[in-house]
C-alpha cells in the first residue's frame, strides 16, 4: 500500500472559503506554501484535528482520521507533533516542564527522541529552569519546536517554525529536521512563505491561494513551472536531484552528477553514491556563447534553449536542456533582455550555462 496522506477540507469563514483537496506522500517533507491569509494555518489545524467544525476527510498512511462527519479522531489521539505559528507555551510551566509535557504522556517504548538530543540541537539547555515569560521571541520558538519533537510524532506539523530565528539557529535546526525524515522517516508538513526554505527542505509542495490548491506535486515539478517562477521573482529556480560522485578533501569540494552534467559544489555531507538535492536559482545561472576558461566559475554546461518567456519587462527567463539530451529536466536561467538581445539567443540556440558553485544549496 502506498504511503500517502489524503486530505479534503471545505469550510467558509466570513469571506474566506477553504476548499482544499490534496494528496501528499506520507514521508519526506511536504510544504504548504502560499501568501499571507491563503489558509495554510487553517489547513494545518484541520489536519491536527483542531477544527472539528470543519467538514472534511483525512486519511494518513492508510488510517482514516476524519471522514465527513462520520468519524473524527480527536487531536490528542492523533500521533502528531504541532509547532504553532505563535509558540503557545504553557505559562504555568517552566521551559523544561513545557518541553517534557508531551513526552511524559508517551509510553517509554513510544519515545523515539531523547530529551538531551533535542535540547542540545535547539541550543536551549541554558534555559531549562527559566519561566517562559522571560524568553525572547526566538527562544520561545525553539522551545515550542523541542516540545513538539519530544512527542515523537508520526507526523510533524510545523507552522512557520523558523520565521523568528536567525540564520545561525536555522542552520542548526534544518539538518536535524532533515535527519528526522531521513532516519525516522517521520513525514513533516511544513508551512512556509519562504521559497528558499521550501526548496531547501521540501520534497513535495502544495501551493495554496485563497483557500484553494493552486498547484501540487513534487517540488521539482511545481518549482519548474513558469507561472510559479514568474510570480516569485528572485527565488525562482530549479531543483535537481544529483548523485555524489567524488569528494575532493583538499579543495573541500564534491563532484555531483546530474542529468545535465557535472556539478562541483562545496563538500557535501553524504557518502559517494548518495543522492542530494540541489536548488539552482534562475538568477544564478548566467549564459555565455563560448565556454570561459579563465573564470572562477567552475560549472559550465553546454545547453540548448528550449523555451523563452519574458518574465517582467526587461527580464527574460530561459528554459534550457542539456545539449544532446531531449529528456533532461529543464534548467532555468534568468537574464536581462539586454543580454538576451546582445547574445542573439533563440529557441534551439546552443549556449553555455555558468553556475556559481558556492551559490548552490546542498
Amino acid at each position, binding site marked *: 500500500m502506498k504511503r500517502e496522506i489524503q486530505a479534503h477540507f471545505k469550510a467558509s469563514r466570513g469571506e474566506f472559503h477553504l476548499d482544499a483537496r490534496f494528496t501528499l506522500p506520507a514521508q519526506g517533507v511536504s510544504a504548504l506554501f502560499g501568501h499571507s491569509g491563503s489558509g495554510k494555518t487553517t489547513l494545518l489545524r484541520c489536519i491536527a*484535528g483542531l477544527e472539528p467544525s470543519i467538514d472534511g476527510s483525512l486519511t494518513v498512511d492508510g488510517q482514516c482520521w476524519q471522514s465527513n462527519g462520520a468519524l473524527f479522531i480527536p487531536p*490528542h489521539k492523533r500521533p502528531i507533533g504541532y509547532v504553532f505559528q505563535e509558540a503557545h507555551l*504553557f505559562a*504555568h510551566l517552566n521551559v523544561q516542564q513545557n518541553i517534557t509535557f*508531551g513526552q511524559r*504522556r508517551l509510553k517509554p517504548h513510544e519515545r523515539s527522541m531523547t530529551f538531551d538530543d533535542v535540547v542540545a540541537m535547539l541550543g536551549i539547555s541554558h534555559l531549562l529552569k527559566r519561566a517562559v*515569560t*522571560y524568553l525572547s521571541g526566538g527562544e520561545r520558538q525553539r522551545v515550542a519546536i523541542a516540545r*513538539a519533537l519530544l*512527542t515523537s510524532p508520526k507526523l510533524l506539523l510545523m507552522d512557520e517554525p523558523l520565521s523568528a530565528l536567525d540564520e545561525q539557529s536555522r542552520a542548526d535546526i534544518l539538518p536535524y529536521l532533515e535527519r528526522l525524515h531521513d532516519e525516522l522517516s517521520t513525514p513533516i508538513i511544513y508551512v512556509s512563505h519562504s521559497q528558499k526554505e521550501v526548496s531547501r527542505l521540501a520534497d513535495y509542495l502544495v501551493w495554496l491561494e485563497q483557500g484553494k490548491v493552486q498547484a501540487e506535486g513534487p517540488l521539482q515539478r511545481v518549482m519548474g513551472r513558469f507561472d510559479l517562477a514568474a510570480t516569485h521573482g528572485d527565488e525562482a529556480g530549479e531543483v535537481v536531484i544529483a548523485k555524489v560522485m567524488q569528494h575532493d578533501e583538499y579543495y573541500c569540494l564534491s563532484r555531483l552528477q546530474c542529468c545535465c552534467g557535472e556539478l562541483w559544489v562545496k563538500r557535501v555531507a553524504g557518502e559517494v553514491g548518495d543522492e542530494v538535492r540541489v536548488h539552482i536559482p534562475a538568477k544564478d545561472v548566467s549564459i555565455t556563447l563560448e565556454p570561459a576558461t579563465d573564470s572562477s566559475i567552475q560549472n559550465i554546461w553546454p545547453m540548448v534553449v528550449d523555451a523563452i518567456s519574458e518574465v517582467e519587462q526587461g527580464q527574460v527567463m530561459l528554459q534550457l536542456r542539456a545539449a544532446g539530451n531531449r529528456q533532461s529536466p529543464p534548467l532555468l536561467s534568468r537574464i536581462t533582455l539586454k543580454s538576451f538581445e546582445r547574445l542573439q539567443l533563440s529557441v534551439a540556440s546552443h549556449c553555455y550555462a555558468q553556475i556559481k558553485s558556492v551559490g548552490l544549496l546542498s
Partner: protein
Amino acid sequence: MVMDWQPVWLSLQLATVTTLLLLVIATPLAWWLSQTRSFLKQPIAAIVALPLVLPPTVLGFYLLLLLGPQGAVGQFMQQLGLDTLPFTFAGLVVASIFYSLPFMVQPLHNAFESLGSEPLESAATLRASPFDTFINVVVPLARPGFITGIVLSFAHTIGEFGVILMIGGNIPGETQVLSIAIYDHVEMLEYSQAHILSAGMVLFSFVVLLSLYYVNHRFEMPRR
C-alpha cells in the same frame, strides 16, 4: 467565661466541607458555562445567581419547605428511605452549597473564559486527553479564579447564618455554628462575649486568608 469550642469546630467543618463540595460541583458547571454555545448558557448563569437575591432567612424558609417532609425534595428522599435534610449537618451543607454557589461559579467561569483556547489546543497536540488537560493545564492556569472562589465561599459560609439557622435549627453540638453563637450573644446583650468571639473569628480568618494569599503569591506566574 468558659469557651465553648463546639460551634467553632462546627463552623470550620461546615465551611470546609461546603467549599470542597462546591469545588466539585461548581468546577464542571463553570467549565460547561465557559465552553458551551448552548442557548441555555445565559439562563443557567442567571439562575445560579438567583439564591442571592432572597433574604437568607426567607431563602431558608423556602428551603425548609422544599426539603421538608411535605416538600418535593423531602418526599423524594423519603421515598428513597432517607431522612429529610433539615436540622441535620447534611442539611446545613446542602443549604450552604446552594447559597454560596454563585461565589464559586462566577469566578471560575471568568477564569476559564479568560484562558482562551490556546492552552487547550497545545495540550491536545501534546497527547493530553481533555480530562488530563483540565487537571494539568486548566486548573493551574485558572488558579486565581479558584482562590477567589474558595475565599468567597469559605468566608461567606463562615459568616452566613440566616439560611443556616433556618435549615439547621440551632441544635447545640449539631447545627449550632459559630455565627449563630455570636448572634445569640448580641441578642442576649452579652456584648463582651460577642466581642471576644468576633475578634477571634476575624483574627483567625485574617490569618487563614493571608496565608492563602501568600501561598498563592508564591505560585504566581512571573510577569514582565
